């Protein structure tokens, strides 16, 4: 019997499942708005909204029931001519800021938004510190050490 490493089996399974995941993305024409421009706007809004069930997907990408319901709500609001910001505010009023995949800049998220700059600054500091700390050159050998070295080389 051929033994296939478990990791390969998992990798294969994962690879097979990947297209399935994207197949869940909204593709049902019945859900779409007739006006392609309005539909594009609805999709752009939906991509900024988190599916509360799967949590790491937008409602446009999720196959969850709730995501479908929320897609429908977004399209109703778009069809009613509401502005993007108003539709997102509608969602935030019900699900909190967590529903936004791009968190707003507020006291709670200052550290989050500043973290790339902070990480860069820390890196620069570490490099600057390391470059300043030059090792002193080694002291010349003492007379006894010179002699010992000669002995070693001779033998």
């Amino acid at each position: 019997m051929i033994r296939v490493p478990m990791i390969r089996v998992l990798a294969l399974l994962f690879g097979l499942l990947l297209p399935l995941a994207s197949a869940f993305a909204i593709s049902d024409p019945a859900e779409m708005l007739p006006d392609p421009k309005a539909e594009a706007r609805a999709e752009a809004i939906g991509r900024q909204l988190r599916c509360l069930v799967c949590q790491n997907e937008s409602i446009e990408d999720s196959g969850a029931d709730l995501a479908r319901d929320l897609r429908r709500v977004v399209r109703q609001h778009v069809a009613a001519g509401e502005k993007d910001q108003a539709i997102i505010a509608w969602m935030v009023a019900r699900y909190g800021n967590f529903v936004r995949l791009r968190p707003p800049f507020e006291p709670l998220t200052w550290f989050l938004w500043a973290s790339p700059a902070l990480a860069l600054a820390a890196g620069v500091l570490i490099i600057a510190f390391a470059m300043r700390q030059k090792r002193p050159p080694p002291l010349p050998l003492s007379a006894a050490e010179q002699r010992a070295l000669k002995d070693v080389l001779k033998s």
Partner: protein
Amino acid sequence: MSGAGPARGVSRRLLLGLPLLAAAAAGGGFYALLRRMEAGRYDPHAVDNPLIGHAIPDFAPLPAQAPASTGFGSADLRAALSAGGRPVLVNFFASWCVPCRIEHPELMGLAKTGVPVWGIAYKDQAADAAKLLDEDGNPYLRLARDESGRVAIDWGLYGVPETFLIDRAGIARGHWAGPLSAEIVRDEVSPLLRKYA
């Protein structure tokens, strides 16, 4: 080594010790986290419901769910709250939802002590929900059906079961996503019920 002095020894020990210390701190943190998750006091998937501290959303009367003969809307709930003079628990459930069965005994227990529990069957078949309540018992004082799940969205619902505690003024004071356990009822629901009684 020529550069080795006491100062170098200290920084070396520090370099060795810091990662160990960091790993120990992280381990302690993770342990505490897992313990809290195990005890049901922390849910990493929980979403803070912005309804807390705000008035319940308006909704037109929802259709009845058997065995109740009339449904209810936000106006009925508000009227009952101000007339009853005590907080109400609003519980979203479904017959297809396994965690709902897990929390069912807790709701029965709450109902037995006289806590008004209002139920909303979420995206459920009327016959299935009726059968469940017939078999397992009906803890609900009032029952309604939200078949499309549209009212639930206004409550910020993202799954079933979810339970809300509404005070006499119609303000949401408590929210639990996921099944109520005996511990949650004892440590969280009951104190809030007393506080807003």
